[in-house]
């Protein structure tokens, strides 16, 4: 129960009204499966995953003056808004670093336009490289796994884990949210929710 928040508490801590919450739900700004129904002593109540919903509502409140609700819905949906972007534009607009692009080119050959799936892969590679936690050869492994499974993770709540134990590192890609327990010496270096990465990427592109 500690990672869930009741609707009543949510409205209070986020300072929004029932009407707003229902409107956002209607506009698909809040995914259906975040509404978790549980019975309590006062009857049935709705709960939400606390971190996700608070983050989402914060984003909606920040962006709703600049974007229409429909545009916001596009941003939050796991399906792409744009179809492709040129390599030149990517570096010029500072969406990904030149290093990441270079690695991509070495691995896949020179690419001039990127589809949204490719962009996401590139963006993840860049983000992990930027953290300084991942070296170049691990980056190649990341490209491998993301490209190999790009169809299976599409439009789902996929998550990416980057794990290292005693100098040996590997990636885990799950198409659904998963809980992982690891040995004591093992370190989860990075844990990304791909939907959130997609949102960030869409924000950067638009």
């Amino acid at each position, binding site marked *: 129960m500690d990672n869930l928040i009741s609707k*009543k508490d949510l409205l209070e801590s986020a300072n929004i009204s*029932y009407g707003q919450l*229902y*409107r956002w*739900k*209607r506009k698909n700004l809040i995914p259906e499966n975040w509404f978790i129904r549980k019975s309590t002593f006062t009857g049935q109540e709705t709960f939400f995953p606390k971190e996700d919903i608070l983050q989402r509502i914060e984003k909606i409140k920040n962006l709703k003056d600049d974007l229409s609700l429909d545009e916001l819905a596009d941003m939050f949906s796991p399906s792409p808004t744009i179809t492709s972007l040129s390599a030149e534009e990517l570096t010029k607009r500072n969406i990904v670093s030149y290093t990441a692009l270079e690695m991509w080119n070495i691995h896949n050959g020179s690419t001039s336009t990127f589809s949204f799936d490719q962009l996401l892969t590139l963006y993840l590679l860049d983000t992990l490289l930027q953290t300084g936690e991942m070296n170049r050869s691990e980056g190649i492994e990341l490209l491998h796994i993301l490209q190999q499974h790009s169809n299976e993770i599409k439009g789902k709540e996929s998550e990416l884990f980057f794990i290292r134990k005693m100098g040996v590192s590997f990636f885990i890609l799950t198409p659904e949210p998963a809980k992982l327990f690891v040995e004591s010496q093992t370190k989860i270096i990075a844990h990304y929710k791909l939907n959130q990465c997609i949102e960030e990427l869409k924000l950067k592109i638009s």
Partner: protein
Amino acid sequence: MEKTKQRNISISGSGTAAGGEYDQVKVNGSAHINSDIQCEVFKCNGSAHIEGNIKTGTAKVNGSSHIEGNMEAEEMTINGSTDIDGSLTCSEVKIQGSSNIKGDLKGKEIIVRGSASIKGNVSGDEVDVKGQVKVGGDCEAESFYARGNFKINGLLNAGNIDIELLRLCEAKEIGGENITVKRNIDSSGFKKFIKFFIGQQTDQLTAEVIEGDHVSLEYTHAKVVRGNTIEIGPGCVIDRIEFKQSLELDENAKVGAQEKI
């Protein structure tokens, strides 16, 4: 199928046609269409049976039609009866007779003047019901306006909800900005006339949870009502009320617990 030369089909009497792309499809007797069909105008004055999907600009059904697949249309009027085994997607749909949809109903303007039964979800900008509606799933709209009888098994979620009750109305949950529920005040003899046939049933809304910014209720039975400003009118039986700003209670309402948050 060549796109440049669009053909029409007109079936008067009884006939069978293959699917494909057409400009106009008119049925004046009974028709059987074997596969998917795409056209600009679909008009059925008799009975039509389509063994596939249909995509059309405008559709008018004055008789009866049965579609085994999905239906997509810009504008659709049903004056007779229509059964759709799949989903119906239509910007403007007007159901004046009766219709059964086994999938979802999606549209901008959904007007029901007869009876409609939808097994899936309903979503639209405007849902306007004078008659009877049954929804198996959720119903979402910017404005939901009902003068009549409805049963929604899931959540009724709309910006403005305006309900005039007739007989037993039911929704599992209701949520929105403005929610108004009133008893139908019909001065003409029409209601008495109906009641003569269907028996004396009280007008009442039953819901488990009603949540909104401004909630005004009459003759409503609910477990929980939550909102900013709440008005509880006559005939209400409510187990628990949670309100933020104001609560007005009618003396003929039965309310269990009430709490200001």
